[in-house]
């Protein structure tokens, strides 16, 4: 029952990077068939991502009102975040419409090289902006860009490509594991040099999960995990401020004014929120008590203003993203292993980073300074996260 019109539309869709589902391809039924039928997973991911982003906008506005204390403009963080959010939406729109195969065909290597170059650039004094002793940003004409975010996306795509292209060899050290580990190690070293151990750990963990999913040998994985953990612990122990954070995490009350300050203040905000919260805008912690209230610790403000209900809701949203992302990967694992692995990688990235951030806020993990995806104020990380999310959406759109 194919009509020329339907043929043409399919051709158009294909040229735009769209792929009609098999059902549509075989059973296009007049006007209704003009709209693609997306899987509920796609809809769920769209709603979750968009919802979290919007909610992040509101919470950034609320959490940054403490800026007014120093005579700052209470709207400035919100204005910047709105612009970045708009940019992020554009990016997500683009990536969600871009055929994800393009990533492995055309973009994988340039992206990897670009991200690697920027990670090197950020270490160059004068180019990299140093904030609080860490060079994590590249400044270009008033705008700042955090290359570590881009590095995550680049690495995920590249590793997924490597793992699927040479699937048989994923258990082979020479052909697959060695380049992957070397590239990941190089990125990790660059990140640690910034220094940004938190992101390095997240990157390594994401690569680890992708390799695991790709079918790497358990023995290799155990060795990798063991070596990486030892390295991370050693690094954490060598830098005094990291060691302090580690110790403070074990007992923040030991020194609630210095090393345990952020953890205790986050706890104060959480405890103040109680079950239903103090209400939007009514957080006390943001008034100079909780540092980085609108960035690293925005989750504490959320849980203070909306209580354990709000806190669990946000946590639940990330769990849902995880579940949806993994389901997408599950559905596509036979049809498109690359897409499946990319979905696993992006999902793991977002969820893991959220958990690491939330874990620090609730005192379950040491403070590493990673942001809460979609919610924390921070321009480039939001844009890149949303762009990566767009890739996930594009992959999800192929799920039946």
């Amino acid at each position: 029952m194919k009509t020329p019109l339907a043929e043409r539309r399919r051709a158009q869709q294909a040229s735009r990077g769209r792929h009609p589902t098999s059902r549509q391809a075989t059973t296009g039924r007049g006007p209704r068939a003009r709209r693609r039928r997306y899987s509920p997973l796609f809809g769920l991911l769209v709603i979750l991502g968009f919802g979290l982003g919007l909610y992040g906008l509101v919470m950034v506005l609320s959490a940054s009102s403490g800026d007014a204390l120093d005579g700052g403009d209470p709207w400035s963080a919100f204005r910047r975040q709105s612009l970045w959010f708009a940019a992020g939406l554009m990016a997500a729109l683009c990536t969600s419409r871009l055929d994800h195969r393009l990533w492995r065909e055309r973009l994988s290597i340039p992206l990897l090289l670009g991200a690697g170059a920027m990670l090197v650039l950020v270490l160059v004094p004068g180019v990299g902006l140093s904030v609080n002793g860490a060079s994590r940003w590249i400044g270009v004409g008033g705008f700042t860009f955090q290359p570590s975010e881009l590095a995550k996306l680049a690495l995920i795509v590249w590793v997924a490509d490597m793992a699927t292209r040479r699937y048989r060899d994923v258990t082979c050290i020479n052909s697959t594991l060695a380049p992957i580990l070397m590239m990941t190690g190089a990125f990790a070293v660059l990140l640690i040099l910034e220094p940004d151990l938190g992101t390095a750990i997240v990157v390594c963990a994401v690569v680890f999960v992708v390799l695991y999913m790709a079918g790497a040998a358990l023995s290799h994985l155990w060795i990798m995990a063991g070596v990486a953990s030892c390295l991370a612990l050693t690094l954490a122990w060598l830098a005094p401020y990291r060691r302090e954070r580690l110790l403070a995490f074990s007992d923040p009350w030991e020194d609630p004014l210095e090393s345990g300050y952020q953890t205790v203040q986050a706890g104060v905000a959480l405890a103040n929120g109680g079950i239903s919260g103090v209400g939007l805008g009514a957080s006390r912690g943001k008034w100079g008590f909780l540092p980085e209230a609108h960035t690293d610790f925005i989750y504490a403000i959320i849980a203070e203003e909306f209580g354990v209900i709000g806190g669990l809701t946000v946590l639940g949203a990330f769990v849902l993203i995880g579940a949806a992302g993994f389901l997408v990967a599950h559905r596509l694992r036979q049809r498109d292993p690359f897409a499946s692995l990319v979905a696993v990688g992006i999902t793991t990235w977002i969820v893991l980073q959220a958990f690491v951030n939330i874990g620090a806020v609730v005192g379950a993990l040491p403070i590493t300074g990673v942001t809460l995806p979609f919610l924390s104020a921070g321009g480039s990380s939001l844009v890149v996260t949303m762009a990566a999310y767009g890739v996930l959406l594009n992959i999800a759109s192929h799920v039946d």
Partner: protein
Amino acid sequence: MTVISTPYRSRGAEPSAPRLGIIAVAMAVAAALLAWQLVDIQVANPDRYREYGLDQRLTSDQIPAERGAILDRNGLLLAGSVASTTITANPRLISDPRQTATDLAPILGLPVAELEAQLRRDSYFAFLAREVDDRVAERVADLGIAGIFLDEEPSRHNPGGDHYARAVLGRSDLDGHGISGLETLYDDVLTGVPGQNLLERTNTGELIPSGQQRVIPAIAGDSLVLTLDQTLQYKTEQVLVQHVTDTGAAGGVVVVLDNTNGDILSMATVSRSDDDAVLPSTENRAVTWQYEPGSIAKPLTFAGVLEAGLADLDSYRDVPDSLTIWDATFTDADEHPIASWSLVDILQKSSNIGTIMWAQQLGDEGLYDSLRSFGIGEPTAVGFPNEAPGLLHDTDDWSGTSLPTIAIGQGVAVTPLQMAQAYATIANGGVAAAPRLAQGSQDGAGNFTAFPHPEPRRVISESTAGKLTEMLTAVVAEGTGINAAIPGYDTAGKTGTAWKPQPGGGYEDEAGERHFVASFAGFLPADDPAITIVVVIDEPSGTRESGGSAAAPVFAELSLYALRHLRIPPSTETAVSEQENVRSESLVEQDAAAAAREALAAGEATDDAADGHAHPEAEAGVDPADPAPDG
């Protein structure tokens, strides 16, 4: 099922489903752990964090409690709190301290440099001017400078003026704490419980916009109800100021007591300042000044004699005009041949020798006990701040001349209030009602709570008191106290002209001059005494330096006024017509005072017996050239 056509289509097994499951389970476990931790802090065990947070952001601003009022015996206001304005600043908000200081200085009347220093303080709060008046506050408000605040603060106001009764009422400081007088004695009654304004603040001290405010209202202090009579107090001060001015005295003290219950109706101290202004003093010398009373203490000696049954009113004895005891010679004020005088005669003439002879019969212990029983040598029940106990040595410490000296009121020190208390005891039929200034407290709802007051205590028998009253009435009727007499009422009282001990020891100053303290103590109406008055004039000058001439007229003027003010009817038949005349002339009380002055003029014409003096230690006060005539 069509799959996506791709040149890189995987050539083998796809990503592992079990591994995906393991990852998903791991994620779920991690999420559960985070949720557990979140619930633990937010719901299960939030207390430690919550309290720590409250501790770091909750501040408490004190709301001053209004200080209780001080009321007279009729509920009239003597001292009260009114709202006033205090100018404060938050130096952190002042952009231009110099300009601000320059603007404020002329309004507040403070030096620019001082204000600027306050405005440059590294703090969030500075007082600029406290409890300014409304016009100043208004002008400051008109400037509208950011960072300058006008705070309401209660300030103490005495409607009678700054001088009125100030020695008794005392003062409270800017923070509402009593610092002198009754303000400090009853500070715990008058002071309220400050309220609290609990506010949430940021770590830099700003108010948190969404923060909660909890106000614990201040509880105003209770009012203090005094025994003072507002009008009588005013009149007492007025008369005393006038009289001290007229006599050129250094100062004066008056105590007016209701002898039936010990209520102090008025209590005034007046002093002459260095620039010769005579004003009510800040020191309540009625209780803080112990002085040698002289002859007004003689009735206490006779109280002992009568109480011991050694003599009666008609007991006569031969009295010479001088007597040498050990190394001291005592004299009467005027030379006279040996005369046979009764007790009444001796007191009427204020004979030192007669008094000493009876005291010798009474003995050391008897005299000591008599004075002591009247409360000499210990503070009164008033318990006024810095109240002096008086001085009466134990008999063990007495020398051979102590008895004759103390018998005539030298070598013993009393406060005017102690004298008033002793005379009130005689007036009250021998029963001492402890003097008091405050009756009780009154809370905001008007409920009155009386302060505990000691039970009246019998000091001498009713008959002894009656006999003493008779003797004292004779003193005023025909003796040295004639100037204290007023029409219509019989007055019982005694004059005293005592030497003032000098700083170097003895009674003579560097120039060899003696200084006197003139006093008059008495009560009236004599047949049913209602009020007891003690007048002490410190160092009266010129011809009016005796108790009879310097103190008795004040007694007369005040007693007449007080009796009319308290509506105490005249007692003697003869006086009724005079009293009626006065009343018909005018109902205004000033006219009663005028009548009293007329009576005084008449009294001054009468010759007065002289008051005597004696010297306790040195070569005895026996200089016949030492004149101290009454009148």
